[in-house]
């Protein structure tokens, strides 16, 4: 087995409220893992544990063990900045920086200390190409990113993440703010990306999970009910709750 993340006995609390309960999950390399479940089930909270974005919430407390390549990322000496360069993230609504398109993509490498103009040019071009955005923006790289459409902005955010050459890309409902056509483009993009990247995606749409993922994990009330091959989850789930959910009996 080739696992990127190994999560064991993960509990997460916001003050007294327990948002995640005893999660065990392995994330496989170069696979798309989809996290589904009704809203408030903890799937977004879970994905934010993987690059320690939950650190930003002061009331958040984590117990258990998350290993990234066999290293505990919640260890006190763990290099969070390094983790976040290896594990990129795309957010629910597009959040480009108020800078030019070029600067948006070059931002991460620059922050990491890359100052070489030629190298940056290459990184920006490649990242935009991989995010299937290059052709649309190649003539206006110095225009503000705020002028792009929502779908373009989200692909720019993906390009921005790719520019760091991450191993994993976390996507937190990346299409929830987009129209169907833009959504389709992002889904195609995810299909292309999984050759080179490991993707963990939270989605509110079961169809989306079925279309793009290899493995699906079903969360409910902070618990991981079931995780399996996507085909199996959607055809013969082993848990009654999963079946109820995917057949639309609740949620």
């Amino acid at each position: 087995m080739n696992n990127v993340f190994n999560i064991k006995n993960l509990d997460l609390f916001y003050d007294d409220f327990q948002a995640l309960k005893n999660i065990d999950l392995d994330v496989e390399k170069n696979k798309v893992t989809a996290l589904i479940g009704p809203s408030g089930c903890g799937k977004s909270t879970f994905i934010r544990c993987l690059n320690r974005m939950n650190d930003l919430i002061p009331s958040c407390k984590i117990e258990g063990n998350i290993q990234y390549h066999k290293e505990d990322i919640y260890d006190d000496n763990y290099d969070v900045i390094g983790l976040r360069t290896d594990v990129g993230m795309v957010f629910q609504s597009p959040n480009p920086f108020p800078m030019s398109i070029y600067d948006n993509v070059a931002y991460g490498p620059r922050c990491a200390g890359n100052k070489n103009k030629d190298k940056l040019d290459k990184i920006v071009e490649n990242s935009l190409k991989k995010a299937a955005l290059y052709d649309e923006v190649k003539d206006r790289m110095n225009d503000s990113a705020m002028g792009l459409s929502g779908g373009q902005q989200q692909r720019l955010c993906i390009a921005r993440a790719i520019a760091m050459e991450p191993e994993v890309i976390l996507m937190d409902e990346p299409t929830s703010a987009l129209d169907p056509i833009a959504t389709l483009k992002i889904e195609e993009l995810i299909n292309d990306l999984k050759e080179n990247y490991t993707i963990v995606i939270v989605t509110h749409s079961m169809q989306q999970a079925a279309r793009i993922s290899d493995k699906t994990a079903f969360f409910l009330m902070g618990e991981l009910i079931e995780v399996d091959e996507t085909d199996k989850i959607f055809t013969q789930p082993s848990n009654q709750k999963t079946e109820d959910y995917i057949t639309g009996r609740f949620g």
Partner: protein
Amino acid sequence: MSNKRKRIDLIYQGITYAAASVAVIVLSMIFIYVFTNGSGLLNFGLITTDYHAKFYNSGIQEVDQFSTAPRPDNLGEDTYYSEKWGIALADSEDREGKLVITVEYVSEDSPLKNLMYDKNSEDEKPIQLEEGDILGTIKFNDKGSALSIYGAKNMLDELDEEDTFREMVFYTKGGGIRGSIITTLYLIGLTMLLALPIGVFTAIYLNEFAPINRFTNILRSMIEVLTGVPSIIFGLMGLAVFVPLTVKYTPADSGNIISGAMTLAVILLPVIIRSTEESLKVVPDAFRQASLALGANETQTTFKVVLPSAIPGILTATLLAIGRVIGESAALIFAIGTAIKDDISIFGKSTSLAVHIWSLMTDEPANIELASTIAVIILIIVLALNLLVKLVSKKFTKKFD
């Protein structure tokens, strides 16, 4: 993370720490400067005495009975006492820093308790030499005058040799700020009387009644523009509009407290309107609807439901406004004038504490010490008001949460 990156981060963070410390340093420097220069004169006498000294050229009738009181024990080392005349004198500095002779003590049976008002006047009303007065000159009948430049000891020695004198020149200490304090208080009262109702009514209209249309927007932005007008421009308006107005309809003949208060009222309107409106905005609509549903009309709803909820905003506005009145200088230099007075009438010339400082600073030479003392008073009041505002808003913000 590489060490280089950590170092750069630390440098950047350090810069923000340095920038933030500027504000703290500036504030403490202002305080230290003003307090070290001003605290020397700060006492109760300062705020109760007149600014202008009163001069007396007094004479004395024949003395039947000289004083017999012994030297009081509480007099300082450098104080000289004459048992014959029952007075103690000392060398000291006045509020302008000049060397003078001050009267430290006058005994009960001192003949100097019974002086003639003026050696030339026919006014029979006797006057007294009092503690705190400054002794200028004593002119004798048959020898040279005793002048204050020779010091307190010399003056007492000269006086002890004689049984009478032709003229004693003395004056009250002066340099007090009683007049300017009274003017400032008048200004606060009158300004609030003018600005509060207009401001609160305007805020209520804009928030409760005004239809959403162009006209309202224009009114709003016209009021908003006022906040950007520098106070010296308001001063010009006071000079061009309110001074002539008060001169025409009141006994005033130049800038006066009323014209000053009117000018300040205009300056404060936007502050009061905004603050009141902000507290009106947080009143939930449900309150208004409930009141209207109970059959109350708009007026009743406004005065009984909406207005009480706006009280914290009005209170905040009042406190801020008082602070602004006390601190305002540029506008008042034009709208009241810079004359420092002791007898205050709302129609007459006088000036506020802040302008008092300006007058002292533009004098030649500038009286920095007294100016700093007034600044201490202004600073303490203004800062106390600001902290009070914080307290008020903290207390009331929880109300509708």
